[in-house]
Structures are given as structure tokens and as C-alpha cells.
């Protein structure tokens, strides 16, 4: 132990002062410029800096595009970026109202994607799943008395509009009759499931009726 302490002391005594090191570096820097006048810019500056800027700009651009565009749908290369950004965004909603608004927005985005997938005749059976998932989250979110009445009304009206879009898309899928994509039984089952969620929720009878009325398509068992 004593040896260690004395080594430390020796090391301390033999430490050059900061001022000396600073002055010496200034001298070395000047000498360097005289000795190697051609080498002012390093390869890092020439290659790495523009490359880094390019990568950052591309990534930021790709991220913005992925997040903003409904064209970025499931199976798209940028879809994981979109899902990642949304997942981070979802973590910032601390109260019920902002969380509900977030899921309403996500429902809208999933519907946009589903409509595009339908237009493309995408051979993807489950593209209605995310819409159904968001709708059920919102319906369960309404099953509380903590929401401000005005906010509650706004959510029900918006949910109603989204349900109409969902219903229209479901009808198009069924009557279009194209190969691939969700088939009739699956689509009707989804509508049926959402209906059940509404019926079994704690919403008032008036709210339930308003929501159920927006579905024209009957479930498969009716």
C-alpha cells in the first residue's frame, strides 16, 4: 500500500504542467504546418464528414417519409421505421385523453394504409387487423367515466366516421371479389367482433346505438 502511495507521489511530481503541454502543442502545430504544408485537411474531413451528413440527411428524410406517407404499408422496407416512430410517440401520452387521441390518429393511419393495400390488390390477408386493433382500444378507452363529456362526444363522432370508412372498405373487399387479400368470412368476423366489443362495453345505450348504426355490413352469423 505504501509503495502504491509513493508511486503515485512520484508520478505526480513527474507530471508535466498543462501550460507546458499547451505551449508545446502550439509550437508543434506551427512546425507541422511548415513540415507538411500539403496536409491541411484529413481524409476524415474529406470523406467522413460529407458521408455522415449524407447518411443523417437520408435517414432523417427516410424517417420523415416513412412516418408521413400512407404509402408506407406493411411489408414496405420503411414500415419498421414508421412503426418504431409511432411506438415512441405512443409512449409520450400520459393521460387518458391524449392517449385516446393518439389511438384515434393511429386508427386513421391504419385505415389509410388498408385502403391503399386494397387498391393495390395486395395479397395480404391481415391488413384489416391493425384497424380492428385500434378500434377496440378506443372502444375500451371509452369504457370509463373519467373522460370530459365534450371530449367523449368528439371521440364517439370520430370513431363513428372511422367505422363508416371501415365498413365501406369491408364492403368493397367483399363485393370486389378479387383473389388474395381478406376474404368475406374474415371481414364479416371483424365487423362482428367490433360489434360485440361495443355491445359488451359500459357505454350508454345511446352511445352504443350510435356506434352500431355506422355498420351497414352484417356479421356472418346474422
Amino acid at each position, binding site marked *: 500500500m505504501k509503495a502504491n502511495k509513493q508511486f503515485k507521489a512520484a508520478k505526480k*511530481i513527474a507530471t*508535466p504542467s498543462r501550460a507546458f503541454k499547451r505551449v508545446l502543442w502550439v509550437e508543434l502545430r506551427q512546425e507541422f504546418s511548415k513540415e507538411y504544408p500539403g496536409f491541411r485537411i484529413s481524409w476524415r474531413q474529406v470523406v467522413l464528414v460529407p458521408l455522415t451528413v449524407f447518411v443523417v440527411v437520408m435517414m432523417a428524410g427516410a424517417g420523415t417519409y416513412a412516418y408521413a406517407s400512407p404509402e408506407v404499408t406493411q411489408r414496405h422496407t420503411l414500415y419498421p421505421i414508421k412503426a418504431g416512430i409511432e411506438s415512441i410517440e405512443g409512449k409520450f401520452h400520459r393521460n387518458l385523453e391524449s392517449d385516446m387521441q393518439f389511438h384515434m390518429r393511429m386508427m386513421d393511419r391504419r385505415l389509410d394504409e388498408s385502403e391503399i393495400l386494397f387498391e393495390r390488390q395486395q395479397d395480404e390477408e391481415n391488413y384489416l387487423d391493425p384497424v380492428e386493433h385500434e378500434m377496440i382500444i378506443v372502444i375500451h378507452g371509452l369504457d370509463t367515466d373519467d373522460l370530459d363529456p365534450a371530449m367523449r362526444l368528439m371521440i364517439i363522432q370520430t370513431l363513428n366516421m372511422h367505422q363508416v370508412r371501415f365498413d365501406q372498405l369491408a364492403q368493397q373487399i367483399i363485393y370486389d371479389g378479387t383473389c388474395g387479400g381478406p376474404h368475406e368470412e374474415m371481414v364479416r368476423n371483424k365487423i362482428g367482433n367490433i360489434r360485440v366489443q361495443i355491445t359488451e362495453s359500459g357505454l350508454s345505450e345511446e352511445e352504443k346505438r350510435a356506434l352500431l348504426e355506422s355498420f351497414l355490413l352484417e356479421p356472418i352469423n346474422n
Partner: protein
Amino acid sequence: MYKSDFKRFYKKHADSVYRFLFFRVSMNREVAEDLTSEVFMKALKAFASYDPKKSESAWIHTIARNHLKNHYRDTKKTEDIDDIVLGYDGQRVEDEIDEIRELRGHLAKLEKKDRQLLEMKYIQGFKYKEIGEILKKSTGAVRVEAHRALKKLRQLYESK
């Protein structure tokens, strides 16, 4: 050969070069500073031809040793660089020296190779890998030898 590379090199090795020289010029700061400056000026001029595959520590250490030998020759000193144990010419403040007087005494009793290892490790601050590169030994061998040397030094403290 770029300025940023040399700056990194200088920052990494300035302390160890200075410490190596400091105890071999009787702890005279002015002389140690002059020699350190000259060593790095030499390194700067030769830096373009330095092979990055070789050890930086070994390279700058060789320059410092050769430069110190030249300094000894010019000042007509006849001592062996490796025989000097925390060299001191009596000009420094006694309090500072008191702290390391005992260490100096014990180090002087050790074999040259043990003393050199301990100085490189615990005073100059080299890593085992760097010491191995300078002494052309494996890192494992250096680690074992340094451990044994430290054990010998501790025994000297205990036997006092």
C-alpha cells in the same frame, strides 16, 4: 499524415515521455521540458515515415532514449540511462523528495529489469501491452514479471 493524428499521438504520449526524461535529468523541470519538446519535434519530422502497424509507445520511447543518450553525451554524463533511480540532484524542494525518498531507496535495491518494469508501469503509466511492445515481450510475460517485481518491492517495505 495529418495534424489530427499527430495531435492524438502527442496527447497520448506527452506525459510518459516527460516522466521518462524527468527522472533521468535529476528532476530538473526545465531540462525535462526542453528534452520533451525536442523529442516531439523529432517525432513530428519522422511521423510521415512512421509505420502505424508498429507500436507508437515503442517508437516514441526509442526516440526519447536516443535523444537522452545524445543529451548525456553532450553534457558529458557517463551514467547508464537504466541505472538512474528517480534521479535527483539536491536542487528540489525537500518535501517533494521526502515523499519518494523511501521508494527511491527500495527501487535501487531491485534488479534493473524489475525497476524498469515498475517505473514503466507505475510512474510512466504504460499499459502492460505497451510495455510488452517496448521490451519486445508478450503482454502476459510482462504482467507476471511486473507482479513479481512489485512483490519484491513490497517485501523490501515490510523488511524495513
